[in-house]
């Protein structure tokens, strides 16, 4: 039996529709999964860095996550603002903070040269030496985000500059 031309064309058309629909569905799905993954990665990073509380309402496309500042977030912002008040080149994006747009807020820390400049100035202004200590923008970030004093004498510097009040003897 010979296949009629009509039959052949019909088969090809049906197959093409199936394959196109299949490719379109999985192509879209793959793009959505990538976007979802990237968004969740950002939320996890920002929640961790800014000590935020988070409510994950949807982890599928479209992602729905709400972030709220915790008491620890306020402490981070206070340290940041205290330094920014004295060294205005370190931007403290008040409007983005009020709008709780944390991803926008974090852009203030993108320029590491600027951060290095700030920490160098802090050491220059303080009557404390940084000799022999590997002080860099990491020292500044560790102080603002984690109040981490180790591996540098940043605690003496911030006390000396009046950014933090002197520690009480235990």
């Amino acid at each position: 039996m010979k296949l009629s031309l009509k039959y052949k064309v019909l088969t090809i058309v049906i197959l093409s529709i199936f394959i196109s629909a299949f490719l379109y569905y999985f192509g879209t799905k793959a793009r959505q999964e990538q976007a979802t993954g990237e968004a969740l990665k950002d939320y996890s990073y920002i929640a961790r860095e800014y000590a935020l509380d988070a409510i994950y309402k949807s982890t599928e496309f479209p992602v729905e996550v709400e972030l709220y500042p915790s008491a620890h977030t306020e402490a981070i912002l206070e340290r940041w603002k205290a330094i920014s008040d004295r060294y205005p080149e370190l931007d403290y994006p008040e409007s983005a903070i009020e709008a709780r747009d944390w991803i926008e807020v974090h852009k203030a820390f993108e320029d590491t040269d600027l951060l290095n400049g700030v920490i160098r100035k802090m050491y220059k202004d303080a009557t404390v030496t940084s000799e022999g200590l590997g002080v860099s923008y990491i020292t500044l970030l560790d102080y603002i985000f984690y109040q981490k004093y180790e591996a540098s004498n940043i605690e003496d510097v911030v006390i000396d500059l009046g950014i933090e009040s002197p520690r009480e003897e235990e």
Partner: protein
Amino acid sequence: MKKRIIVIIVTVITLLTIAGYLITERLNAYQDIEEVIEQEFRTLRQYVEDVYAIEFLDDDRALVFYSWDFPAFYNFGVMELEKTWQGWQFVEAISNRMERKRAWLKGVYAEIGDHVILRGPTWASVDKIEIITADGREYIPELGRAAEWQMWYLILEDEPFEEATFILYDSDGEVLHEEVLEFDLNWPE
């Protein structure tokens, strides 16, 4: 005839591939709850986690109590999973930052799904916690253990309370510590 067979074979293969893919996808969903939890942590990008407890509310609903983020594990999460015809599925997760440092215990109020949950970290030496509210109600929260820390949690079915006295006991029944904790019932507003 030969051509017709080829066309039929090609069609069948294509349809089988599509059906196979869809079936595998569905089958993957029927997993063991612990595998699902691991998968959800990867989805949430909440790495290096500690699971303190899995509480089954009924046959098809579970709450997972955990903390995440190395090395401090200061982010305390609770995740709700629901069993559907597709297997265990993510419903909602809440993560609260609670820096333990030297505190005996911490605690927060949260609503997840239809449930009111109080929870927070405490030391591993604590064997039992007694909660006494201002209006005289008493509760014994569950304790979930992971490494050197524990998480206490209370799934509250009654009226929530704004503050309560927490009495911490060791395994000999001795009082280790007593503290009043306050809860923000309006969180997260």
